[in-house]
């Protein structure tokens, strides 16, 4: 079997002076969602690697910020950077996430980021 050739200069060339994730600007096309949208977190198959926390799956939250374009972590983790996605910051009510969250702390929230593949309209 032959040896793989790795292009070690690729990311530095792309991102030098520009930054990461700035270097992926314009590559994700049209954002599917916008600020204020209510979204549900999809429970995609969880095999080998994910950065979409299991504790968020199936929960409904509100998009609070459209943050940047980048390859999804699940792809970037294997250096597959050809298809960046839009990333969103989503806020959940804690009592939506945890059935045993104390009712007296009714305003508590949690915020975390998702790449677009993990979201569907709620």
């Amino acid at each position, binding site marked *: 079997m032959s040896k793989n050739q790795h292009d070690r200069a690729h990311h530095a060339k792309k991102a030098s002076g520009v*930054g990461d994730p700035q270097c992926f600007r314009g590559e994700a096309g049209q954002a599917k969602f916008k600020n204020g949208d209510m979204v549900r977190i999809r429970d995609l198959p969880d095999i080998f690697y994910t950065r979409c926390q299991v504790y968020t799956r199936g929960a409904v939250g509100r998009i609070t910020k459209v943050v940047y374009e980048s390859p999804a972590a699940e792809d970037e983790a294997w250096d597959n950077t050809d298809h960046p996605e839009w990333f969103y910051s989503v806020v959940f009510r804690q009592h939506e996430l945890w059935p045993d969250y104390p009712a007296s702390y009714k305003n508590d929230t949690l915020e975390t980021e998702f790449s677009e593949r993990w979201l569907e309209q709620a």
Partner: protein
Amino acid sequence: MSDTHKAAPMVDEVSDFEILEMAVRELAIEKGLFSAEDHRRWIEYVHTLGPLPAARLAAKAWLDPDFKKLAVADGVKASLAVGIDWINGPPTKFGTPSDYCSFRVLEDTPKVKHVVVCTLCSCYPRTILGQSPEWYRTPNYRRRLVRWPRQVLAEFGLQLAADVEIRVVDSNQKTRYMVLPLRPIGTEGWSEQQLTEIVTRDCLIGVAMPQPGVTSNAKRPVHPAVHPIHTGH
């Protein structure tokens, strides 16, 4: 749980980790993956990092409402005002590989208190805050803060009214966060320097709130290193 009653090892004893570390670094340099100079430069770069710039950013935001607006809207741009260039500051000139260039300042209000965790690993805004504390990296903190934030904050000495919104921010992707805490009463007329001094690393993570006269993190046990860092660079 730190094991402080173990006998101190002999000075010459070298651990398996130390042996492997040398082996990997030497091989990487021999194979041209990075240079010895690269490695030295990175060590020196890390030595320049610490919580002071983030503390100054907080103080500036307290003193200037327009700067506060900028800090909340564009953390990377606001960082330039405290001498931190997320993109060109690190030796890479594209941000640090692990901390990226997406920085958000989370503004506390009387109604909203932020606290930061990375449940998946220990992502932390090193570029403006320095290295993360040990407790922040523990599976324990990462398991519990997202689900029992009030209990965990109480262990750090913080208790907030039931109707305050505690917002746990889980930095699971490329964005890195600092908390812009509430400016405490009793600091009227203070200079930027005086205000900077009371914004500790723990305040910037969100597990403490700034107080006049408190200029360091709460005292905790410190697990000693067997072979600590040489400071004579």
